[in-house]
């Protein structure tokens, strides 16, 4: 919170829980998303159940739309969503590769000599919170590495099970996430 009160003529004194700006696009997008998930879950297309779905989606989007989208929707949100979808197959491939590596380790009879746990530290260049969360969860999903902590200065500490698992961090994964979230 490096806000200088003198440089900010308009004080932002809204209560801390109202983080999200509530706008129509946020409600609309949440409603459409919820309705889609409802149709998937319900599987009944008679008017009665669809009316229940409309009611439930409206309730949820009234109650917690600002949890899902914390700022009004723009074109960037949709571009980010598509970039994220493009990033997923690569992530799955990486998870499969390193899962095979950890599988080999855990079946190996002399496992204790092969593993060499260490805590790596590096500073990420990703700016937005969402990109950092994606990066941290991708690291944790890739077997062999676990994000321990991300602090305020974007310092990541990662626990790696051996030298091979942690050698290409941040590297390729960070570059791809930066491209997906438009932070090149």
């Amino acid at each position, binding site marked *: 919170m490096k806000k200088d009160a003198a440089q900010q003529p308009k004080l932002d004194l809204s209560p801390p829980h109202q983080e999200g700006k509530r706008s129509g696009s946020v409600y609309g997008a949440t409603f459409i998303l919820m309705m889609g998930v409802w149709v998937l879950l319900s599987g009944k297309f008679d008017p009665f159940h669809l009316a229940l779905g409309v009611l439930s989606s409206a309730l949820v989007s009234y109650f917690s739309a600002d949890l899902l989208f914390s700022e009004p929707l723009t074109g960037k949100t949709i571009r980010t969503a598509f970039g994220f979808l493009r990033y997923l197959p690569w992530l799955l491939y990486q998870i499969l590769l390193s*899962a095979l590596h*950890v599988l080999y380790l*855990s*079946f190996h009879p002399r496992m204790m000599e092969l593993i060499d746990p260490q805590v790596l530290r590096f500073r990420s260049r990703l700016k937005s919170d969402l990109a950092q969360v994606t990066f941290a*969860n991708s690291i944790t*999903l890739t*077997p*062999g590495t*676990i994000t*321990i902590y991300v602090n305020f200065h974007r310092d990541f500490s990662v626990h790696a099970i051996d030298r091979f698992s942690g050698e290409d961090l941040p590297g390729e994964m960070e570059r791809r996430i930066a491209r997906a979230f438009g932070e090149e």
Partner: protein
Amino acid sequence: MVIDLIVAFCLVVGLIFFAGGTLGLLRFPDFYSRLHPAGKLDTMGSFLVLLGLAIHQLFPLTLGTVLTGLKLMLIVVFVFLASPTATHAIVDAGFRAGLEPWRKGDPRR
């Protein structure tokens, strides 16, 4: 029966991942290294097993089975979101409780 072969392959590989995860959970030397097989190999295993089952129940192809298959994939999406978060929460708790990471040469705990 190509489909049955694909399903059986998915299930067997997924169960091998599960077995590796459990074995690692029992064999690895300390808290932090146990999290690697337990949290992540299980995620991969459940992905493969649920994918296989979703393909299996897709026949006969009706609207109901397609929706059930999509629901199975919804479980997979949920597991892929929730599992790393839970792992992160546990490892954070361990770090705050002051557990030392195991290094090469220490006795196992």
